[in-house]
């Protein structure tokens, strides 16, 4: 009995020490350093333009799970959804020469990329689907991103746990050939639960980096002054890693 008490005590001491480390500034910077090393290692090992694997039609998942926000809770959204989003606009701005605004029709008129990819959620599940839309690089080139821009920020219409969803990526992922503004899933307009009418695909990262219900794209020099300063909804509010390639 004494031995068991000692063992439980030892365990509590260990996990208690761990929580002290996790709460400390040094612990946080250790976590950030490890995350950064993973990103650097991934980028050093693979070509910056290396593609995530693409699959065939037979691999497409029967159900593409909707997670996080599965709708936008507003009358305007419901009205637009029922009409096929005639008035939805995707604005591109920030550190660009030309501010732009795209309707769905404009986006469909651009050269399209279709890709059958695997979506990996941070929770652990995966689903395969075929996504179609213009490459983000086309939009950024049309807007002429200024050289001082280091990140692309995506703003969304959905409110999750009382906060507006947003995400961000760096220029390596922004100009990656598989980074597309998707308006179709499996040959159909995007379903409501998967982000209708527009969602980003950032194929080499986990699902929370693929913002849905997209309204605005902004080129910025730094993420520090945006929302909580950590580059995304999950990063700001729940401590998730900004680099979600791990």
């Amino acid at each position, binding site marked *: 009995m004494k031995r068991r008490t000692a063992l439980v005590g030892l*365990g509590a001491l*260990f*996990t208690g020490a*761990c*929580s002290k480390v*996790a709460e400390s500034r040094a612990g946080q910077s*250790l*976590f950030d350093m*490890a*995350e950064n*090393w*993973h*990103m650097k*290692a*991934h980028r050093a*090992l*693979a*070509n910056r333009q*290396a*593609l*995530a*694997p693409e*699959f065939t039609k037979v*691999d497409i*998942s*029967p*159900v*593409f*799970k909707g997670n996080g926000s599965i709708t936008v809770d507003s009358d305007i959204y419901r009205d637009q959804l029922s009409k096929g989003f005639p008035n939805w606009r995707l604005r591109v701005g920030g550190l660009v020469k030309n501010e732009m605004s795209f309707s769905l029709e404009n986006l469909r008129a651009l050269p399209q990329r279709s890709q059958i990819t*695997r979506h*990996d*959620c*941070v*929770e*652990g*599940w*995966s*689903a*395969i689907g075929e996504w179609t839309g213009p490459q983000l690089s086309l939009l950024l080139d049309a807007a002429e991103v200024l050289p001082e821009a280091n990140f692309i920020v995506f703003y969304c219409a959905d409110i999750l746990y009382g906060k507006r969803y947003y995400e961000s990526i760096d220029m390596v992922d922004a100009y990656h050939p598989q980074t597309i503004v998707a308006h179709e899933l499996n040959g159909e307009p995007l379903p409501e639960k998967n982000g209708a009418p527009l969602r980003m695909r950032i*194929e*080499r*990262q*986990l699902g929370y980096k693929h913002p849905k219900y997209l309204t605005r794209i902004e080129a910025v020099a730094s993420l520090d002054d945006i929302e909580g300063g950590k580059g995304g909804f*999950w990063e700001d509010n*729940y*401590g*998730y*890693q900004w*680099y*979600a*390639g*791990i």
Partner: protein
Amino acid sequence: MRKKHSLLTRIWHWLNALCVIVLFMSGLGISNAHRYLYWGNAGSQPSEAWTAVIRFPDWATLPQRYDLAESRDWHVLFSWPFAIGLLVFWIAMLIGGHFWRDLRTHREEWKSAAIWADIVKHAKLDFTHDGAKYSFLQKLSYGIVLGVLLPVMVFTGLAISPGFEPAAPWLVDWFGGRQSARSIHFLAAWALFAFFVIHILLVLLSGPVKQMRDMITGGRDET
């Protein structure tokens, strides 16, 4: 002759023990985020799963509450010393001779009579083994842990990572897809846990004070 544990063996042993404990407990926390396992590349519905997993209680996870982000932080941090430590230890074992001298099994040890004799000896709690540093069953279990389970944890871990995949898509295929790699990661983790339990049990049965002292100070060379 029986040599004492080398300094590198002792450092690696304790570093690896710490890494495995942190990775296992944070891994249980990560498992709680989606308690289904699948084969193949994809799976998200209970109907696609080959098994459902229990919810691991908070006292078993790191941190001691459901916090996927912090569990991942611990997992991502300790994956570095775990993988690099294993690589360095393997190189040192191969170059320094520990593997060839102490861990490699010989043909005569694989004869069923010899294996049976070793099992009977263990069952009688007789842990002496003259000449060699390790008995056959020890070599076998250390070989499985060092040569199979620990490397499988590293490689399946890499295969689950979507940012690593473009560097080595063959690795994911090799395990039969991402969700297969995730399932194998889970199974190998529990196989390591089984080793951990038996390992500790045998240390307790074979003189825990001496065993602990030898793994800390190295012990003495015996002839």
